[in-house]
Each structure stands twice: as structure tokens, then as C-alpha cells.
């Protein structure tokens, strides 16, 4: 699967437009949804997995969750 320059530009434009329209800076990913269920201890990389419904998507190191982005 390849990414074209056109797709890069398209995504960059989309992100810029979003930020202009919402008057907000995207910030960094650690500002995204806080995972409340696993207290940031689930990583999806660990050999255990936690009880939370977001266990598949939780990135424990940042306490953030990718789930909402794929809702």
C-alpha cells in the first residue's frame, strides 16, 4: 500500500481546515481522550490485557485512547 504526495497534501489540508474552522490547535496526541478505565496501565503491547472496552486501542504510555478516532 503506497501513499501518494496527493494524499499527503489532502490530509494536511483537511487538518488545517479543521483547525481553522474549530479555532483550535490540534495539540499533541497526549491531549486526546483520556482513558478512564485502565488508568493508563494497558498498552496493548503488554502480555496482559485490561478489562476496559478500550483495551485494544489504549496507548498506556500517553494515557490517551485511539478508540474515539475509529468510532
Amino acid at each position, binding site marked *: 500500500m503506497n*501513499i501518494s504526495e496527493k494524499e499527503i497534501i489532502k490530509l494536511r489540508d483537511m487538518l488545517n481546515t479543521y483547525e481553522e474552522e474549530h479555532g483550535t490547535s490540534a495539540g499533541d*496526541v497526549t491531549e486526546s481522550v483520556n482513558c478512564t478505565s485502565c488508568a493508563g496501565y494497558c498498552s496493548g503491547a503488554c502480555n496482559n490485557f485490561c478489562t476496559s472496552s478500550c483495551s485494544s486501542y489504549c496507548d498506556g504510555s500517553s494515557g490517551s485512547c485511539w478508540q474515539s478516532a*475509529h468510532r
Partner: protein
Amino acid sequence: MLMITYSCNLSCSYCYESNKSDKMMPLNMAKSLILKEAELVHNSSEFDELQIDFMGGEPLMNFDLIREIVEWLGANQLSVPFICFATTNGTLMDDEKMEWFRKYRNIIWLGLSYDGSEYLQQINRGVKAQIINFDYFHDVWPEQGFKLTIAKESLRSLAEVILDSQKKGYKIAASLAQGIDWSDDDAELYLEQLSLLSVAYLADNDLTPINILSRAFYEIDNPPEHQHRYCGSGVYMITYDIDGTNYGCHMFAPIVMGEESALEMSKIDWMCETIADDDRCKNCILKSYCPTCMGLNYHFRGEVSKRDFGSCKMILAEAIASCKFQIKVLTTRRDSLIKEDVSYGRAALVAYPLLSELSIRNSISPFVM
């Protein structure tokens, strides 16, 4: 985490618990440890709930203790919110247990660990998948994902296995088996399979992309001085062994390390900010993206910070596939972007040109630009 049994009914090919036995945690000890931890949470400003993990071995080998504890908790609420959890291979469930777990499903969740197909279940675990009632687990705990460990033997059919499971409605969380000497061929195959998954997800919005394609690329162009922790061992999580001795996690306990090498909780400074720093990786662009398990590091390499260089190419394959997928999928969301998408998109756009410079065959870890 309570190590309630050292016993397991299976011998999985990738199992790292090499000191299994018939030892069990006494019921009274389990109860007193739970009360002690509940009291700590009750008096803490940092924690507001208690998760009680029953761990083994195979936890259901000590089902009697699980039943006693859960019914006791059901009749005598703790002073703090709590949930019980156990990871199981699912092969010991019978009608009686299924009925009991269904009754207490609001108190205890079970997470099923399996290998994804009849063939893999047989060669990795030596057990037939047909004896596991997948629909039962999905029906009773629909929000709980199944755990799939990716072994060498799994690679060739990885996409097919994951998609088949997801199309049945099962949530899947996958992770690489540890301590494996992955080859470049393995990494290329992994990349190929992840690409197949990406194409499938892009074609079908009803499928939820698997976790291994969904991790964020934060700080890739500016790795932090100190490695992020990837788990709460010793901080958010404490493991009590069958005799009550405490460890940061089960990986440090005798069931994994043996009696002589087991490393008690008090012998590590868990709050030390350099605890996970591996100097060899300090300039690697995948330093923050790459997961590191302190327990496995200690088990296989004798130091909690010393990462598994045998999996670098697999992590690179994952990063390349994930980055491309995240860019592709976000470009389809012109009218439905949310703030988190923007964060992830920005990170992926930063990562993409760096990852484009790397290849499975020609790059050498650590990956330094």
C-alpha cells in the same frame, strides 16, 4: 493482581512461565490482600477504583477461589468501586462455570486468550479450538476483546484470522509473542499481512481496525529524554504471589523467573524516571512508538530497561503499515474529523517521511536518522 495458582492445563509454545506447579493461593490470604488494597484505594487521592486481576497459570485451575471471592465481594461490597478480571484460555469452561460467570458478570470479566484459528490453536497450544465456546465469551462480555498472540506460525494467515474473528463480531487485541528471534522474512511477511488488513479496513467501515494498526506516532521526530513507561507495573499495579510476597508484576515472580531470580517489588525503584531507559535506543526514532515490557526485559535479558532487539524489524513493519493506514483512513473523513483525528493525523504526517527512509531489509536498528 493475585497469583491464585501456578498451575495450567496447557503448555503453549510461547509461554514464558517455566516454573508452573500445583501451588495455589489460600482463600484467606486473597481476601485479606483485597481488603488491604481496597483500604489503600479508599485512602488515596490518586486512585478511585480497584481492579482485582486473578492470574495464573490458568486462573480457572483455581475456580473455587474465584467463586468464593466473587460471591464474598458480591455480598460484602468493598468501600471502593471494584471489578474482578481474569485472563483465561477458555478450555476449562463447563456448563456450571458458564452459568455461574453469567450470573456474576457484573463483578467479574473474563478475557479470552486464543490463537485465532483451529490450526494455530493446535500447534501453539496443543488443544482443539472447538472446545472453546467463543460465542459465550462474546455474549457475556461483549465489550471485552479477545487476546491474540502473534507467533511465527501465525504470520502467514494473520490477516485472514483477524478478519474472520472480527466479522463474527469479536473484538480482537493482538500483540507479538516475546523472546522470539524474528527474521527479516518474518518482518516482511508481517508488513504484508498488516497491509492486507489495512485494505480490508479501508473497504469496510464496519470493521474496527485492530490495535496494532492504531497506535499513535507521537514524538517520533523528537524522542523524549526518558522512555515512557508502557505499563503500570509497581505503580498502578502490584502483584501478590501465592505466598503474599509482592512483585511489580507477575513477570518478576517465581512462576516466570524461578525462586532464585525472582525480583521482589521493594528491590526496584519503580518511580525512577530512567527505569525504562535503554541507552542503545536513545536516538531511535521509534523509541516512543516501540513497546517495552520491563518484566520481559528482565526475564530475557536480566535488566528491566534492556529491550528486545530481536523484534525491532517487526516494530518497524508495524510502524510503516500503521502510518500508511492512518494517513489513508483519515483522508476518508473529510466531514467527520474530530480533534483526536487531527492529533493523530499530524503525528502520522511527521512520521511518514522518516519511515519512508527505512526498509525492512536495509535498515539496522536502532533506527537513527
